[in-house]
């Protein structure tokens, strides 16, 4: 009996506990039941928010890029250079019937390079890739001019028509030779160069597999027959690139002074120190902060392509090797399209809010702008730097005026 009573008492308490769901948000019925305070927005335009800026190129080098470029554009000519790893495995152990035997390479039936398409201008048809034989140990520091002599008819190995239906991610095979002769001095190393032709200037890129060699990198396949008496046995060997890059003309140089260069390859980043009034650095009251940048000329890149520009705060200023704040939510970004020009609006409110927090308060008022994904897009843009006249960067800040809660 007593136990029953306790359970009843406990049940009463449980009913209360289970009922603790809250829904107290009522619709506003003004003026009677509206809050006394109002959220009031205000704008302010900072015409000279940047005290100093600079651009540096070389964050992602050409050989580290995620793509390998060939181009015949007037503004950029490029060819791809690939040195494949040495073919080490020339012996294998096939099982014939119930016996395992030792086989040696008798002769090579064919040598094929498989590439994965990265980007192409689909408006250009009848595009062809030209595969050239390069010296096995070509100069990895070669320039477009120094490597050009090797792109001649005498070294041409294959011409591959690129189907108009070929899209990014598709695989294309480049047939190099049937029975390839590799001089002993080359120690089973093959290097190739890839160029392109098209009825009109265009560009074509393939995936490099960088930064770590992946299955999307160009792979070289040897299809071989074994020596007699196992000459009916076939085998394929594959080797990955040992070194791959592309060379360009003109080669991008260091960004000029007074220009904020972002993107391209080697990739460039721009950093800018901001001088902000107190109202612009607040942890809660800023709702929008737009950096207004003016292009010097249309954004470059693959035809009809686009890329992001991302702004991140710098937590330690070590010049070009400054440390960025890793939280992706504390950033701003904007999409740029190839050919885009004029004013670009980049929202950086999360960065200003970060500077208003206890963590961000001690960090420099320094932001870094870079292309994204960096090293995987060709796109590049030049903005007017600070102190270059009417087109200099400006910052528009929208904030909430102090909210009056009132008392009681």
């Amino acid at each position, binding site marked *: 009996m007593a*136990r029953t009573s306790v359970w009843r008492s406990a049940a009463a*308490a449980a009913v209360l506990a289970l009922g*603790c769901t809250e829904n*107290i*948000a009522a619709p506003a019925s003004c003026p009677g039941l509206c809050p006394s305070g109002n*959220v009031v927005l*205000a704008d302010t335009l900072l015409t000279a928010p940047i005290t100093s800026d600079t651009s540096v190129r070389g964050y992602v080098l050409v050989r580290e890029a995620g793509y390998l470029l060939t181009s015949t554009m007037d503004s950029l000519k490029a060819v791809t250079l690939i040195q494949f790893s040495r073919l080490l495995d020339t012996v294998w152990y096939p099982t014939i019937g119930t016996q395992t035997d030792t086989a040696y390479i008798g002769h090579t039936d064919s040598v094929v390079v498989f590439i994965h398409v990265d980007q192409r201008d689909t408006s250009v048809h009848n595009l062809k890739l030209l595969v050239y034989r390069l010296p096995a140990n070509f100069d990895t520091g070669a320039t477009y001019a120094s490597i050009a002599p090797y792109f001649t008819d005498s070294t041409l190995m294959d011409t591959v028509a690129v189907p108009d239906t070929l899209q990014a991610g598709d695989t294309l095979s480049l047939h190099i030779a049937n029975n390839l002769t590799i001089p002993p001095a080359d120690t089973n190393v093959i290097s190739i160069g890839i160029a392109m032709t098209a009825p009109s200037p265009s560009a074509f890129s393939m995936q490099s597999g960088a930064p770590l060699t992946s299955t999307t990198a160009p792979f070289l396949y040897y299809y071989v027959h074994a020596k007699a008496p196992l000459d009916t046995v076939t085998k394929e060997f594959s080797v990955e690139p040992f070194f791959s890059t592309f060379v360009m003309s003109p080669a991008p140089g260091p960004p000029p002074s007074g220009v904020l260069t972002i993107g391209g390859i080697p990739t460039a980043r721009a950093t800018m120190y901001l001088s902000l009034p107190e109202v612009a650095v607040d942890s809660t009251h800023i*709702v929008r902060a737009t950096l207004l940048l003016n292009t010097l000329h249309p954004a470059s890149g693959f035809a009809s392509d686009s890329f992001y520009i991302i702004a991140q705060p710098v937590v330690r200023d070590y010049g070009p090797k400054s440390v960025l704040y890793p939280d992706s939510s504390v950033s701003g970004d904007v999409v740029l399209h190839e050919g885009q020009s004029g004013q670009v609006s980049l929202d950086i409110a999360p960065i200003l809010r970060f500077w208003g927090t206890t963590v961000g308060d001690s960090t420099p008022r320094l932001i870094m702008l870079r292309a994204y994904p960096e090293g995987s897009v060709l796109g590049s843009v030049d903005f007017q730097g600070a102190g270059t006249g009417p087109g200099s960067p400006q910052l528009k800040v929208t904030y909430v005026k102090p909210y009056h*809660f009132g008392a009681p």
Partner: protein
Amino acid sequence: MRTVAGALLVAAAAAAWPAPARAQDSVFGIRGLGFLDTGVSPRSAGLGGGDAILDGESTVNPAAIASWTETTGWAAGSASSRSFEDASLRSTRFPLFGLTAQAGPRLVVAVTASDYLDRNWSVAQTDSGTPVDSTLVVSDLTRSLGGVTDVRFAAAYRLTGLALGAGLHVLTGSAETTVLRQFTSDSAFLPFSDQSITSYRGVAASFGAVASPLPQFVLGASVRVSGRMRAEAPDTTTNVPMPVEVHAGASVQPMAGLGLDATVGWANWSRSSAALVAAGQAGARDAWSVAVGAGLSVLRLGRRAIPLRFGYEWRQLPFLIPDTSGALALSEHAVTFGFGFTAAGGRATVDVAEQWGARVAGPLRETFATTQVGLTVRP
């Protein structure tokens, strides 16, 4: 013994519940000092609050604790569902805790904590406009959590046919107001939020008496005198004069198994009006309250009596509601039903009350249904 321990366990669990002790919410809590609570126990709430002036668990009359003859603790929970315009609102609160003990053959002391002013409210607004350079659709959520708790230290002395009591009230608490604006039409705008905490403190004293001039007739009266309540926010401080509250009531048992109760109250909240107006509020008015109830002791389940309670309460709420044509006066009325039963071998009592009513201020109308459960333990 095990039964008593179990009942104490239940009481302790209820008392330790992490939610703040707040009474039923109201959309009208946004105005003035908040929504004024009654300090009425679930047992008395079943009677509409008609016997609140004589009820030892309620905080209306300090002399009423003289009815306790042994150490007793009590706690109450309240689940409320409300409708306002198209919105259905729910909330659960724990508005009352108390403990009393015998300090002598005739002296009883008690400490209670009850809701006094409830400042739990939340308002959602959607708007559109061009406040800066682009057209925006915004949604605002303004929310207040907290309120003012009345902590009372009371003592009562029993005389023959008469009990006198006095209480010292400490008003304490805080309300955290948060505003959140989201820009639903433009992701370039980050949400804005801000918050402010207003703390409250004040003191009051109450005096009361309970007399039984006739065997089946009990009278009670109390008066509560308050000083100023200080409301302190980060950017402003307001001192609000608090009212003198007077309550009187009676209970009569005309026949066996039937009790009739009534309590009338008045408070001169108009003395708070000037301070409220200066703070941007619409002001306050004097407020009356009337509560009547009837209790029936005819139902039994086995050997256990199940008292049934019926009641009606009407009261004026002191804080005015601003309106385009001036200010609206708010009033509340409700019908009530309740019952109770003993448990744990008579060591615990559970009281349940249900209220159905409405709060009306001009065209604004909030309907509510509230379930209150009280647990009284005598270890």
